[in-house]
Every structure is written in structure tokens, then in C-alpha cells.
């Protein structure tokens, strides 16, 4: 029953969709504050390499080491995001260019690989791994077992985060003010909201979540650091923010859809379906293109309500 192809795909969708969701949720916060972050891929990789480093060098119980590794990965992602915020908010640089620079600077052939080399992350085996749980011993229950009770602690954390983020964005005063900053910083400023502070904090929060997503790759999927191991997940996450209409709940569903697309190839290959693997592996990216084309139509733009000031630096005196 649980090896049914649909169950397997659904389970993979959740497992491999989790890091996408973390990164995309970070993107939701960042973009809601009006900052476009194309540096997600770089922040994920920095999170991945620092997480792997920490799991090797922080002593103590496995639980403590892994918690510390996750915190360090998030902190590292936040630091890179702070650099992005400095460029975009303080220096008012072009956000597209700044984001791309961050990804190139921190990404697969940049800082993350450099750290991996100088810290010799590859030298020792990462023996501590975030393992999948068997919650309440229900993992073997038909259908719901693998879907609900056989995930890592991070997946359960992502569900909690999704609920908290929705509440934060749409039910709290700070959330309202955050959205105000993203829609019209001038009016928010006039209301006494500190636009710069909101943008810094939420860009860094976004970076921390991207770092967490990256650490999922090097701590949960495999206990290994590999240069460039996110392989474009950061870009999918950016598309997911739009796909999820800047809303946590829809972003979670989108992440699972992309997670399913990412594992469809491997699942079908193992069952002798005669479909070229390369075509299936390209699916997530084809889907990304389709989504981005759809949402950039005039109709969609009117309807889905992207933060109006997204990508626009805020100049206080410029009216």
C-alpha cells in the first residue's frame, strides 16, 4: 500500500519540497517588505556549508549539535542577507543586480565552495544527520503513515512556521505594517513606520530561512556537503514566492508541487516507465517558466497583488 507510486510521489513531494518552502517563505517575508531577493541560491549554499561545518565542529549530543548547526546556518544566511539589505536599502542599489551579485559571490563557485575548502568540510564525514522520525510509531500506517508521520523534525517545523507566518502577516499589527512598507513605503513612513528597519529585518529573516533551506540539503537529505548542492533550488524558491501569491499557505502547496516534480523522474525511472529522465528532470524549470509567464500577464498582476513597491528602493525625500 505504502509503496504505491502515488504515495511515494506524495511523500517525496513533502520531503524534497520542505527546503523549497523554507527558502520561499523567506522570500515571502523579504518581498512583502518590498525588497526583491535574487540572492536566495547563494544564501542557501552558505547555509548549507556552514551547517555542515557546524555539525562537524560543535560538540555535545547529536540533538544539540544539529540544533546548533541549524542556528548557525540560519545566522550565516542572515549575514549574507544583511549584505543584500545594505546594498539595496542603505545604498539603494538596483535590487536585481545586487541579488544576482550575491548569488554569484556566495554561490556554487564562490564563497560557499571557498569555505568548504578552507574549513575542509569534505575532509571528515558528517556523521550527524537529521533523520526521519517515526511519529507515534505510525509511520507504517497505510497512506497517512508516510505522508504525515515519517518526516524529519524540520518538516514539522515548516508546518508550524507556515501557520505562524500566515498569522503574523495577516493578523498582527506588525504584519500589517510590514505589508504597508512593501506596498507604499512613503505612506508607511509618514505613519511613523521605520521603513529601513522593517526592510533590514525581513530581508535578514528571509536570508535566515534560505540558510535553513540550504542546511536541509547538507544535514537532512544527505549528511554531506557538495559544492553547489542546491542545484537551482534557490531560483525555484523565487518563482514559488510568486506562484504562492506572496502567501505562506499557497507557497507551501506550491513547494510540494515542485517537490513532486523534482522527484517524479527518479520515481518513474525506478519503475521502468519509458520516459527520458532528462525531460522529467527539466520539469520543475519548465513549470517555473510557465508560472512566471502567467503571473506577469496584466490580468494576473491586477489580481494577485504583488507588493507594489517590490524592487523599488525607498528614497525618503523623493516624492
Amino acid at each position: 500500500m505504502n509503496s504505491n507510486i502515488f504515495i511515494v510521489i506524495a511523500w517525496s513531494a513533502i520531503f524534497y519540497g520542505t527546503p523549497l518552502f523554507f527558502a520561499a517563505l523567506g522570500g515571502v517575508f523579504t518581498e512583502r517588505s518590498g525588497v526583491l531577493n535574487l540572492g536566495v541560491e547563494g544564501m542557501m549554499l552558505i547555509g548549507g556549508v556552514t551547517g555542515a561545518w557546524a555539525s562537524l565542529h560543535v560538540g555535545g549530543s547529536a540533538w544539540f549539535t544539529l540544533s546548533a548547526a541549524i542556528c548557525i546556518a540560519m545566522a550565516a544566511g542572515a549575514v549574507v542577507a544583511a549584505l543584500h539589505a545594505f546594498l539595496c536599502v542603505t545604498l539603494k542599489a538596483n535590487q536585481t543586480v545586487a541579488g544576482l551579485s550575491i548569488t554569484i559571490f556566495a554561490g556554487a563557485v564562490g564563497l560557499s565552495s571557498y569555505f568548504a575548502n578552507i574549513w575542509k568540510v569534505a575532509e571528515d564525514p558528517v556523521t550527524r544527520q537529521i533523520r526521519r522520525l517515526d511519529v507515534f510509531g505510525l509511520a507504517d500506517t497505510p497512506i497517512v503513515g508516510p505522508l504525515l508521520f515519517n518526516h524529519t523534525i524540520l518538516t514539522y517545523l515548516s508546518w508550524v512556521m507556515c501557520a505562524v507566518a500566515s498569522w503574523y502577516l495577516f493578523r498582527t499589527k506588525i504584519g500589517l505594517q510590514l505589508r504597508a512598507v512593501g506596498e507604499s513605503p512613503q505612506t508607511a513612513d509618514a505613519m511613523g513606520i521605520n521603513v529601513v528597519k522593517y526592510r533590514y529585518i525581513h530581508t535578514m529573516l528571509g536570508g535566515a530561512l534560505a540558510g535553513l533551506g540550504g542546511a536541509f540539503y547538507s544535514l537532512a537529505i544527505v549528511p554531506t556537503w557538495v559544492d553547489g548542492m542546491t542545484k537551482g533550488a534557490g531560483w525555484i524558491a523565487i518563482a514559488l514566492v510568486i506562484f504562492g501569491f506572496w502567501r505562506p499557505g499557497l507557497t507551501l502547496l506550491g513547494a510540494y508541487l515542485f517537490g513532486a516534480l523534482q522527484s517524479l523522474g527518479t520515481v518513474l525511472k525506478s519503475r521502468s516507465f519509458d520516459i527520458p529522465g532528462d525531460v522529467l528532470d527539466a520539469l520543475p524549470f519548465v513549470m517555473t517558466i510557465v508560472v512566471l509567464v502567467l503571473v506577469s500577464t496584466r490580468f494576473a498582476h491586477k489580481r494577485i497583488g504583488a507588493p507594489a513597491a517590490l524592487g523599488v528602493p525607498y528614497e525618503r525625500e523623493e516624492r
Partner: protein
Amino acid sequence: MNSWSQACDWPGRTEFGGWPHTYYLFNAPAISGEEILNKRLSKKWLPLAATIALGVGLVACGDDNGSSSEDTTAAAEATADTTAPADTTAPTDTAAATESSEAAAPAGDWSANFKPWEEGAAPVACGPKDGGALKAAWVYVGPINDGGWTQTHDEARQKVQEHFGDKIETTYKENVPEGEQVSQVIEDLIADGNTVIFGTSFGFQDAFLAAAEKHPDVCFEFATGYKSAGNLSQFYGAAEDTDYLTGMAAGAASKNGKLGYLASFGIPEVVRGINAWTLGVRAMNPDATVKVVWVNSWFDPPNERKQAEALIAAGVDVLGMKGIDSPATGDAAKAKGIPWAGYNRDNSANYGDVWLTGTQYHWDVYEIPRLQQVLDGAWVAGNYYGNIGDGFVGLSTYGDLVSAETRATIDAKKAELAANPGGEFTGPIKDTAGKEQLAAGKQHTYEELMGMQYLVEGVDGEIPAG
């Protein structure tokens, strides 16, 4: 409109929040003049940003497969095997670890497996001329601590250094990319006085050939290639023999007769491995089938793990692999508690509860006597294909899952293959379509082995086109 009302004139103001936020999905927010201005800006931005994002993403992703598919040989070009156990905890020297089985297969003479390109060629005088130490250099594609391919090469270099003491001065260059830089690295090494150069990555081959023609007084030794010159040798070994023995362990471990196999690329070296492994499986478990999946890279742990998990979910109860240097397959096996046969690295320490065994290379078996020949002024270029008999290839430590009875059967077969390399390919052998590829009683020639392009009966899968 004053600024206060602007700030509060917000879709969220009426708190339609809820989850999921259908309100935001289907209701257009009221838009002020200023917001329209901003919208225009963002409309310009979004598609542009998205296009750039996509383009970069696609390029970044395409790159990986593209570059690695160039390397047609080296199974473990694969470099960084980062999760492999640290050397201090894992015995990497198979000879020591499986003493009992080594004893059953007395070490043969390496020179029986070496054939000069040209009979009676004059030795290349690349020894030290001023009576000093011989300087030999190794060129590596990865870091010396990659836990896999390059690390096994560097361990061999250290054994060479230990063996010769101050008669030879060894050096190495790590992380040399396959490209223009190789030639420069070789030139630098020669300028430093090195007269024997070892190459360890298939992609270095053309640079080595060019350097060999330019420097006729330097001896070049190349692993995993096929091109020849008067001062360029090729060395590699019959991993298919040990792959067969590994397959025997896997076949004995399978209960339902369905095994899964991860393979890198459809090149002859990997195809030989798949076939030998499958024949080994079926020697122990005659009706078993081996589901082969191609992961299209030498080293991509997350993808390997995903693929291994998909195989397990499809019902296989033992996993094997070839041309894949990360233990990610072992991680998937460990999570589900099913047996796993590895490749090119002894993972018995960290994966003890699922580990069976695997193929390992011992480069020093060839390198030490060859350097002795240089010192003796007797080095000629040629082709070396080592085997179990001379100790160039061997098996990793057996895992606890391999029963004493199975070990005895494998050890007996190992002794047989030590005396008759390639003996696992003895006819009749049919391919997946049922066509006879090898007549009864016949054995594949060396050339046939090197060009193998069919999959044996029992394999579920086909060699990808191109």
C-alpha cells in the same frame, strides 16, 4: 487622499486574513494613484528579474551534467566522497582487512599484466642523472582529502614515498581542473625537475599526450586512459572481477530477488561493472533481476539518495552501485535497513549494519615496481591492466550481513578469478533481448571487455542512447 487614509486603505485592513487567503486571491486591492505608479515599475521589474533568474538557474543546472559527461572513464572521477568514514576509523587497506581471502589468492606478478606498446623498445632514461633522488609528481583532479578517488591515489603516493624513502622525492598538485591548466601544471612540474608524472583523471589525457611528445625524456604514467606514446603508459585494472564478487554478496543477501543498481554513465567500464555484478547476483540467486537506473553524474549525493529511495519504494531489497563515489546510496539503504554493496571505498565502519562489500583499487601495486624500473633504467611505456591476482583490485572488508558460508563461496570464486581474470564472462551469456553475446565455453577478449555495449540477461534497464 491624506497619507493616513492611504496607509490604512489596505486590503488587509478589513482582516479577511484567514487561511488560505482566498480574499487576496480573488479580490483586487483598491489602488491609489501612487500605487499605480509603483505597479508600473514593478511590472517592468518582475518579468525581467524572473527571466534573468531562470536563465541563470538553467545554466547553472545544465552545467553539471554537461561537464561530467565528458569524462568517459574514471569511475570515481567522482572526487569528493565526503561522508566516507575517516581514515582513522575505517580500514582502507583491503589486503590487511581481508587477510583470509588474500591468502586464498596468492599475489601474482604485476608484470604479467603489463604489455609494452612496442616489443623490444629502448627504455626511456628518465631516472636521476646527477645521482640525486628521483623526482616523481602526481596530478590530481580533486582535493587529496576527498574521501574517494583522489584520496585513494594519494594514499598510494604515500606508500610509494614510504617504500623508496629518500631514493624518490614525491610531490603532487591537487584540484587541477580538466582543461588548459593541466598543460601548465605539467610544464611547471617538469621545470621543477620531476621526471616521472602520474595523471589520475581521464580528462587530463590529451594534455598528457601533448606533454609526452614535447618531453621525450620524461616518463608519463596515466590512469584510466587509452592513448599511447613512447613515453606514455596507461594503467587500470579489472574491477569487473571484484564487481562480480560484490554481486555474489548482494545476490545472497536478497530475499525477494529484486535488486537495485545505481550507475553513472553508459560507458563500457560501467557497463562491464553492471554485467559482472548481475552475473554475480545470479550465481547466488538464479532468478534475480537487477533494476539499473542511470544517475548521469559521477558525484551527486542528493540525487543519488533520491534515486536510491525511489528504488527501495519500487520494491528492491538490496542496492548496489558503480561509478558512483558517494555513500548517499548507503544513507538511503540505512534509513530503510536494507543491504548495500558499495564501490571504491570501504564503508564498513560507518554503514556497518547495511554494508556488504565493494570493489577497491590498490594503485601502488603498479606504481612501486614501475618507479623501481625507472631507477633501474628499465622503464618502457605500455599498457597495464591489473587484477585480483596481482592485488591491483580487491574487495573491501565484508560486512556482518555476509554470512560465513557466503564468504567462503566468494573467497573460492575470488581465487578462481585471480587465476583467470575476466572468467566471470564465460559463455553462454545472453543479453537482455535474449540474443547470445558469448558462445558456450568462450570468454571475452580484452578488446571485447573494453568495448562492452550490451547488458546481460537479468538486468532490467537499457544503455542510454548517446
